[in-house]
């Protein structure tokens, strides 16, 4: 992975450079016109955010039960990126919503889940920073419970109310929109994996630095 990092980074950069062109050439949606194109960044970010949250939960479980430090680094990196992608989702969504539905915000399943998930990611980072010793375990517990919560939030808010376009919107995209959409999905996931790799590696290096620090004392 290390050797592939720089080339993949270039690929990702190229994809993001090309994306706006790709998106601009996509057909306009009949009622929404330009604003609808926010969806090309919003929906992939949403996908990445969800996957990232689940990764954080899973890695936290491994950390708690297998006591694996590496799993803790993965959980931390995933939580941070959930926060980043969550911010993208929550900022881009209302832009689209205002035009589509006339309101900035509605309490439907996916939006609520995004908001709560984002809060849990932020809480994870706050605990990590201000919790004092043992905060790695505290945040791992939070991430695990947060991930387990996902189906419940989805279910309870879904039953409560739904306006958001159903999941089936993706496969039924008209031909001109499908390509840029999946292109953006690929670009976002590629960027995510690169960021995760870099971030996890940063934690590993911090630990190595601590080890060297201690060894130097001998």
């Amino acid at each position, binding site marked *: 992975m290390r050797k592939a990092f720089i080339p993949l980074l270039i690929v990702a950069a190229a994809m993001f450079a090309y994306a706006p062109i790709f998106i601009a050439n996509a057909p306009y949606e009949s009622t929404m016109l330009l604003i609808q194109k926010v969806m090309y960044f919003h929906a992939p970010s949403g996908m990445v955010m969800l996957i990232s949250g689940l990764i954080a939960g899973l890695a936290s479980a491994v950390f708690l039960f297998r006591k694996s430090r590496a799993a803790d680094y993965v959980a931390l990196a995933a939580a941070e990126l959930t926060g980043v992608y969550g911010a993208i989702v929550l900022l881009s969504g209302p832009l689209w919503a205002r035009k589509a539905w006339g309101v900035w915000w509605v309490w439907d399943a996916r939006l609520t889940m995004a908001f709560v998930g984002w809060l849990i990611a932020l809480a994870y980072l706050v605990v990590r920073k201000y919790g004092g*010793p043992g905060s790695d375990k505290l945040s791992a517990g939070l991430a695990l419970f947060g991930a387990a919560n996902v189906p419940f939030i989805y279910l309870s808010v879904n039953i409560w109310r739904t306006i958001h376009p159903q999941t089936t919107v993706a496969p039924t995209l008209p031909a001109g929109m499908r390509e840029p959409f999946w292109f953006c999905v690929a670009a976002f996931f590629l960027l995510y994996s690169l960021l995760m790799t870099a971030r996890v590696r940063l934690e590993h290096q911090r630990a190595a630095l*601590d080890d060297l620090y201690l060894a130097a004392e001998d």
Partner: protein
Amino acid sequence: MTPDFDRVELFELSRRFGRRRAVWKVTLAAHSRDILGLLGPNGAGKSTLIGMLATLVAPSSGTIRFGTADGSRSSAALRAQIGLLAHELHLYPELTARQNLTFFARLYGLEAERVVPGALDAAGLTERADDDVSSFSRGMRQRLALERALLHNPRLLLLDEPFTGLDDRAVTLVSTRLRELAANGAIVVVATHDLDLADGLVTRVALIRDGKLVADEPAAPGLRSRYRSLVSQT
């Protein structure tokens, strides 16, 4: 089946908190009938070592063996053989002495009516048994806490700074009790920074400084003068 053991062995035991080394590569053994003194200045890592021996703190690396049993997984059976008297005493101030002992006796699966009166007597608190612990002096609480730690006749007794706030008479009482327990086969580990009090009590000395073991030998009279330079804070 409570696994009994006659020695505790630490091998290259370490515990770190980020960049801070609390305990570093300590190799040590304590045997039945020993009173092992973990001596050293404050902050040397004695409490962390006690925590690891009590299976409350997981080591970062290294192993603990209780006889033949591996100490890395804390099981209820193993904990039944360990008694801990820490600096904080672990007593409920809102409850009476009797209520405290009864609760812990039942928690340990013992018949409270059978063991509590004896424990109250050994602590010298039978007259004050039904007074709230919040009304007790430090010395009284310490004696109560010691008897609480001994209710279940543990094989391994861990004491972290057990002499804090005790007057001479209380110190003598506690020391006598510890010698009795060791003579009956217990493994006693006492962590303290007070060399004078450890003098004459401990049978073996393990000196800890900055998390490392700097001396491990049988005890001889005159601990303070022998180890003064090693223990003095720079």
